[in-house]
């Protein structure tokens, strides 16, 4: 590895971990409720609200329409407001979160739609509030599927972090592209891709395991 140092790799790994974990956490905190809202307000949902559904649905569509780099530029003022700067790893996390929220929302929406209608009825018959229906019925019943959705989203995030290099976010993916691909260093490509594969492998297996546990209890 002529052109990159161990320190660089370690730094990049930490950056990737930081970007992925924070944006996953906050993305899930945003995306899961958004997915829940989509399901609740949909036609046939327990809080059917066509206006709300259309608005959220369109919002999700709009954000999902933006190529990542455009999104990144479009939200610069917001990013600065939140983290005080528009460059670096921290600044990359903001667009990553915005990028992943609607993605998670869509996957969660799909997972929740698979929950047996009878269980929602049971909840309603018990006089559960909407919040309770979500908390005690919808989410637990869809948990296995939601975990797999989050796994898929996490791996999507790793892909997206590669683009974080654009604003100096760094990370393994960025090293793979700028030191490997653009500087014609096959060794660097292979090595960084290897690290990425290990990342993804661990995340997927961990996700599968948790989902299996949630499904099979």
């Amino acid at each position: 590895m002529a052109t990159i140092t161990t320190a660089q790799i370690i730094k990049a790994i930490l950056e990737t971990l930081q970007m992925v974990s924070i944006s996953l956490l906050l993305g899930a905190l945003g995306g899961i409720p958004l997915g829940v809202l989509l399901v609740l307000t949909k036609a046939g949902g327990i809080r059917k609200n066509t206006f709300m559904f259309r608005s959220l649905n369109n919002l999700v569509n709009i954000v999902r329409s933006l190529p990542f780099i455009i999104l990144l530029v479009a939200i610069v003022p917001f990013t600065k407001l939140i983290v005080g700067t528009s460059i670096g790893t921290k600044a990359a996390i903001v667009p990553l979160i915005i990028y992943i929220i609607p993605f998670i929302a869509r996957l969660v929406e799909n997972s929740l739609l698979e929950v047996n209608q009878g269980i929602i009825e049971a909840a309603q018959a018990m006089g559960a509030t909407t919040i309770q229906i979500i908390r005690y019925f919808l989410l637990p019943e869809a948990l296995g599927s939601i975990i797999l959705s989050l796994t898929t989203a996490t791996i999507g995030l790793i892909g997206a972090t590669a683009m974080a290099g654009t604003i100096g976010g760094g990370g393994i993916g960025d090293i793979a592209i700028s030191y490997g691909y653009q500087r014609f260093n096959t060794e660097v490509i292979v090595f960084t891709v290897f690290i990425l594969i290990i990342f993804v492998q661990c995340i997927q297996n961990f996700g599968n395991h948790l989902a299996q546990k949630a499904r099979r209890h």
Partner: protein
Amino acid sequence: AENTKEKKEITIGVSPGPYNELFDKAIKPILEKKGYTVKSIDFSDLLQSEVALSEGSVDLNVAQHTAYADNYNKEKGGKLTPIVPIPTVPAAIFSNKYKSLDQVAPGQKVGIPMDPSNAARAFRLLAKAGWITLNDAANPTTLTKNDIKDNIHNIEIMEMDSAQLPRSLDDLDFAVIPGSIVYSAKMDAAKGLLQENVSRELELVVVVDEKNKDSQWAKDIVAAYKSAEFKDYMKENNKNNYWFIPEELK
């Protein structure tokens, strides 16, 4: 893109920036007058444009300097050949916060382009500014952070997408911005705090595949860049010395 005598259709690989616009505005009309038709294919990544050139999917591009072409040839075994140097926009150090290079201080953020050819130029410009020194053994055309011997002012060098640099200038203390980006972002080139020296290998060139370098159309392109018509055009359009004009074209 066969190399036949009758070849009258030229395909150019387009990268964003002033060089292609210069080609479109000044060279293309000349070629068309000679009976050529010029087709273009857009690339957002220069490297893929090179691959296309090697592969024969495009005939030429006007987006690189000799150093980059040499490096590509070396790494990828390509046979890309420069046929003529063309007007070049030098890179420069810009800042929205400071008026002078002297205001550099430890911990300041200096943005540089992340793509290798522009990065190498940026490191050399930083060395010219006296902010860093470079390892003697380093290849000046493929410099990376790891070739820095001494970071005199302990600046933090951030590599990022070159098109991001003007956009992030408020968050950076200084940035090395390639001329093509300065042009695209409609920045005032005169506000540059320090311009690079456009050395021979950093002059932009028209590049074709080696097998085409003696073809008639290649010769006609060279002729177009050297034509009086083009010289007039440059005189018209280089008011504040935005362009660096190579010797051959003067």
